[in-house]
């Protein structure tokens, strides 16, 4: 975690509910100072339902945010205050141990009150109706075009470490067009599809960028009572050869996921070990391909559930890999688990999403991407009343650990970490969901581009990037 417009990462006071940030002396691209009241203005504006922000929900937990979003309180009551020009104070309703990590989300960035007032309804709709306090200024974007430029912002506080003066960005929908443009030197970075990645993998300019997104099978315990049986779920977890699936179906260099929490998301506060790796110690057998053990567990599980056979429907959608993935899973599950019959139902992507959320499925491949770099962004999903716990897996101890991580251990980083590790291990052992893979986005990157970093969410960091001559 590195401070940017704040001088340092704030330590909370008042039992973890008050954060006071000292802001750096920095300027907007129009020359105005970036002040604490720009944050206050931006946050109130985002939470105000009249603004219609689709990201307001991220503010839940900041004092009064929920009430304001529901129209039951004024935006001015939000728990954010400018103590002075360069001192910002945030008050939370309850401790949020990962609050600092949430602030990396653009939904918490400051907005210039002057600029918003000046541009009115047009604010943010085109590059000329924006002001910036980051490393680059957006230019040439008319609000609907596919190409724009990022031009170095001289007023950025860390401008001395910005070495590239201009970046041209183009949205290209057709992957083979992007590949052709890259190969003829018109692009320095292009992302690849699975097929392209399989071909490009051996090239020196190939890069796989690990993303903080995991994909997993959800088993609907409400609809298929047999899925309540732990052995049956464990059998399914062990009957999938993730490496083969990634190699044959996805082909994009994704990695198999031993946990729902992806690698590279969060580190142990004391040992700096990766969360996912630490949690997988002693628990990786649950996601390792083991057809023999899977069969044993399956037979025992069916017996416990008083069943001889089981027929389920695997819900998939019409997106790129979904059809092939569905067929692969159908095949491998039926092959390794005797008496299991899997049929496939394919629906449009949006229908798939709504069916997942409404529990209208037996088995479905779901995915989640991190909102902020903390394991809770994944683990929070699978508590008994978690709104994205589509399969309705429930474990009292798991719920208790997640609860403790937010209350009892909220201000004790070490104990909180241990609680989350334990919770992750329970989820893996129980196979409450069946983790399949962590997405890796394949790229071709001009080898001249050095130090290009990608955040877990997939966004680029161009600060410090240089071009080798």
């Amino acid at each position, binding site marked *: 975690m590195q401070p940017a417009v704040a001088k340092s990462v704030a330590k909370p006071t008042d039992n973890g509910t008050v954060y006071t940030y000292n802001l750096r002396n920095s300027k907007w691209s129009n020359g105005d100072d970036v002040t604490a009241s720009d944050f206050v203005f931006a946050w109130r504006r985002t939470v105000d339902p009249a603004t219609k922000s689709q990201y307001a929900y991220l503010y839940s937990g900041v004092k009064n945010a929920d009430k304001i979003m529901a129209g039951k309180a004024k935006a001015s009551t939000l728990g954010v205050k400018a103590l002075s020009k360069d001192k910002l104070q945030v008050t939370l309703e309850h401790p949020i141990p990962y609050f600092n990590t949430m602030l990396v989300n653009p939904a918490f960035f400051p907005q210039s009150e002057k600029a918003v007032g000046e541009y009115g309804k047009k604010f943010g709709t085109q590059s000329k109706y924006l002001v910036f306090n980051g490393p680059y200024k957006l230019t040439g974007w008319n609000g609907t075009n596919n190409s724009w430029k990022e031009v170095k912002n001289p007023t950025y506080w860390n401008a001395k470490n910005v070495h590239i003066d201009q970046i041209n960005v183009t949205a290209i*929908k*057709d992957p083979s067009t992007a590949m052709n443009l890259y190969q003829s030197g018109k692009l320095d970075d292009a992302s690849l599809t699975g097929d392209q990645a399989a071909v490009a993998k051996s090239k020196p300019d190939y890069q796989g960028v690990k993303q903080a997104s995991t994909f997993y099978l959800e088993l609907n315990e409400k609809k298929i009572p047999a899925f309540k049986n732990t052995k049956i779920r464990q059998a399914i977890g062990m009957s999938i050869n993730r490496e083969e699936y990634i190699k044959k179906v996805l082909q994009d260099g994704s990695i198999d996921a031993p946990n729902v929490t992806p690698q590279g998301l969060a580190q142990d506060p004391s040992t700096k070990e990766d969360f996912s790796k630490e949690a997988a110690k002693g628990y990786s057998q649950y996601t390792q391909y083991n057809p023999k053990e899977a069969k044993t567990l399956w037979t025992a599980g069916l017996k416990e559930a008083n069943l001889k056979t089981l027929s389920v429907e695997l819900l998939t959608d019409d997106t790129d890999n979904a059809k092939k993935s569905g067929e692969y899973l159908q095949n491998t599950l039926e092959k390794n688990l005797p008496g299991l019959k899997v049929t496939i139902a394919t629906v449009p992507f*949006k229908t798939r999403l709504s069916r997942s959320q409404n529990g209208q499925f037996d088995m479905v491949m779901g995915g989640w991407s991190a909102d902020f770099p903390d394991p809770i962004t994944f683990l929070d999903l699978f508590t008994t009343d978690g709104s994205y716990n589509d399969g309705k897996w429930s474990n009292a101890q798991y719920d208790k650990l997640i609860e403790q991580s937010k209350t009892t251990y909220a201000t004790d980083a070490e104990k909180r970490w241990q609680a989350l590790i334990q919770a992750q291990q329970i989820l893996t052992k129980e196979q409450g969901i069946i983790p399949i893979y962590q997405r890796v986005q394949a790229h071709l990157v001009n080898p001249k581009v050095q130090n290009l970093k990608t955040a877990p969410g997939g966004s680029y960091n161009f600060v410090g990037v240089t071009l080798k001559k």
Partner: protein
Amino acid sequence: MVKYVLKRIGYLLLTLFIVASITFFLMKLLPGTPFNNPKIPAAQIAILRKQYGLDLPVWQQYLNYMVGIAHGDFGESYQFAGQTVSYLISTRIGPSLQLGVQAMIIGTLLGILLGAIAAIRKNTWVDATATIFAIIGRSIPNFVFAALLQFWLAYKWRLFPIALWDGFSSSILPTLALAMAPLANTARFMRTEMVDVLSSDYIELAKSKGESQWQVVAKHAMRNSMIPIVTIIGPMAVDLMLGSLVVENVFAIPGIGQQFVQSITTNDYPVIMGLTMLYSVMLTVVILIVDILYGFIDPRIRLSGEGN
């Protein structure tokens, strides 16, 4: 004539009203919401729906919609917050119009030429080649042409830009890809019609007066053979000018075709409605113009009411 045109304009407005209504109710049948971040909690979606007036009964939404449209107000896009539909269309339609017009001109001119040559040299290898060419142009989808043109002419031989919208040279390959279908269509129509015309009495008469074959074709046959082509040119032009998703995607062109498909997959109701209405208006107006033009091109056709 005036009475006829007024009556037709009346029908046109009725057609637009029916199209708008059907589109509105079909849109309501689309799965999903315009709020495409799957992480937004249900409570938050309810708040957003209220802000956009989507919580009202369907008939009330329909009324609001129709009143807005009648005033020429198509509202704001959901996907591009703060962007009005008219701005969105006006900034994206330029490249599509340009490509459409270029493709139309090249396609019909070459098509007429190809069709005429095939007819004149009926049942020779020239005719056969032209026919094969037309069948290929008709049956291979334009994105295949687009990909082939891009790979060979741009990527391998570097004669044209691979993609992106940057000056006239970048419009050549997409124009060619789009021109294939109108070329093939026109060529087939032209050939059939020309063969008919060439065997008619007045052509025989012209020939017997001692005019050369080229004179006959240029002076008499061409004009009469082109009448049915006028019929297909209208709808074809509208189709072309409103963009092609695939060709625009292959050449990364910021056109309206891409926008149309995107608006449907993201449930961007106001944009879907705006584009459907634009398409309907263009199509109905073009058909009306073609019908009126008929009277001028072909004296044999009389507009109803004129004989009275």
